[in-house]
């Protein structure tokens, strides 16, 4: 080690330190989340977890692939509907219902993604929005979605046939496993050889093409991954609230998850979690304010775009000079 040039020893200093910090944060987070349901309402916490996963899925696409989707409600919502329908009308077990909803989001992601990635920047965002609106109208009109009422009283059922999920506390730990697993999965994706390519696409797509990368394939791959994980979040949410409704597929849902990501810090590992927690908390505790919550969200959106574009975690990362 002592024979290395300064450049080489620096080379090892950086990659070793950063993942260790992330590991510590994940571990602390897990401990807190294991204690949390005994202090806070499990349903509230499950909502935070679902949205943390949803926002992290969007962040995978936006913060690491540089692709702004304004139609992620399509994946969240359709998975939510399909899981709700499968659990209620077909009586599928919760794990199969979630799997089916997630798989549907993946297929939808493949279809929408294949068309959307042909466009760049704002046009990409508009194509995703347009498709999401189509999914929304489908949800309004289709005979099996329950129209304005949505699909209500979805049975949570028994996980693997023997774990009764009717207790909020039991379900919480299942949701924790799903969401935390999803977050670790995303963490692995962004720190994989594939993730390196994604960051390079985000930073400078033409340059990456000039190095011989077929970027369209990578964009499609990350789009499908992001859609799938958004679907997993929506499917899980359907079981938590025992409900799939038009709210899940409405464009405001797409906007909200973008807001969570921006507020927390896009392109950071922990930003979407913070953003999701902040917005869900706000919605729950200021619910009495009615429509003013939307106004407040609008103000936060404008502020986070104009004043601190890096988001909460982005600012902390800059001040502490750590990658978070």
């Amino acid at each position, binding site marked *: 080690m002592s024979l290395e*040039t*300064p*450049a*080489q020893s*620096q*080379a090892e200093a*950086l*990659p070793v330190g950063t993942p260790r910090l992330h590991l510590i944060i994940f571990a602390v987070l897990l401990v807190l989340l294991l204690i949390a349901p005994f202090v806070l309402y499990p349903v509230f916490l499950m909502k935070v977890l679902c949205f943390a996963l949803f926002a992290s899925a969007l962040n995978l696409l936006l913060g690491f692939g540089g692709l702004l989707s304004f139609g992620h409600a399509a994946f969240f919502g359709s998975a939510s509907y399909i899981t709700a329908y499968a659990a209620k009308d077909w009586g599928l077990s919760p794990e199969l219902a979630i799997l089916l909803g997630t798989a549907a989001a993946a297929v939808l992601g493949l279809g929408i993604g294949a068309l959307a990635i042909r466009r760049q920047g704002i046009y990409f965002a508009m194509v995703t929005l347009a498709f999401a609106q189509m999914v929304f109208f489908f949800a309004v009109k289709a005979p099996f979605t329950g129209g304005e009422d949505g699909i209500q009283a979805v049975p949570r059922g028994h996980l693997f046939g023997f774990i009764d999920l009717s207790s909020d506390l039991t379900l919480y730990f299942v949701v924790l496993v799903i969401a935390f697993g999803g977050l670790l999965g995303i963490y*692995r*994706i962004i*720190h*994989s*050889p*594939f*993730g*390196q*390519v994604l*960051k*390079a696409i*985000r*930073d*400078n797509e*033409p*340059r*990456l*093409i*000039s*190095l*011989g*990368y*077929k*970027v369209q*394939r*990578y964009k499609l*791959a990350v789009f499908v*991954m992001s859609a799938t994980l958004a679907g997993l979040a929506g499917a899980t949410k359907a079981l938590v609230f025992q409900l799939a409704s038009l709210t899940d597929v409405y464009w405001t849902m797409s906007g909200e998850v973008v807001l969570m990501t921006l507020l927390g810090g896009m*392109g950071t590992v922990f930003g979407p979690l913070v953003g999701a927690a902040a917005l869900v908390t706000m919605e729950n505790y200021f619910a009495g304010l009615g429509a003013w919550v939307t106004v407040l969200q609008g103000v936060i959106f404008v502020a986070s775009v104009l004043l601190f574009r890096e988001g909460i975690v982005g600012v902390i990362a800059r001040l502490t000079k750590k990658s978070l």
Partner: protein
Amino acid sequence: MIEAFEPAPDTRGEIILSARDLTKRFAGFVAVNGVNLNVERGTIHALIGPNGAGKTTCFNLLTKFLQPSSGTIHFNGRNITNLPSADIARLGVVRSFQISAVFPRMSVTDNVRIALQRRRGDSFDFWRSQSVLSAFDDEALRRVDEVGLSEFAHVMAGDLSYGRKRALEIATTLALEPEMMLLDEPMAGMAQEDVTRISALIRKISANRTILMVEHNLSVVADLSDRITVLARGEVLAEGSYDEVSRHPGVVEAYIGASHE
């Protein structure tokens, strides 16, 4: 190098890259007009001309970042006119960009490593830790050192000065060991000491590859190039050694005319 005086460009050596009647029209405006270009293997070939002459557009056509309106492009005898950009890069023709093209939010070493990573083929393995890429670290650092950036190895590329970004770009391109490099104004915005170092580097790396280079710094062009093509208003105005083209009346006129505009 002693230049032959015969006008035909392909009497010596083998042609690695050739363009025939290359034309590009933009909404009624012809940016590149019937350009014929033959680049000989193992040479440094400069493409010069006043601003707006169509040099960058030529690069974009040769590497298929733009689709030619007409004309053909051959590399190593193979027609590459209809290949996508990434495939042309894979064949060994790698370009740089006029506006510095780095990956700003990645470290200097990671910039080079993303090029080295191409050797794995496709990198769709999202389940694997990126630590598998550390196999490329030593070589990436060597490339970084080669362009004089070793003290910045772990700096974010976006934080580098303009001249250093250009140097990093060359290191990244070199990491692919391309058979042919297309450099668009590699020295633009560099301090004189960097120009000297990068000139020396380009000469060194030209030993076993072909370089087509756009450059405004004429002393660099005079110093490095074996052959020069002068472009003006989208057309080839002259071709030959530096002495030949610099005596060409049309070339003198084009440069003086351009500086008066």
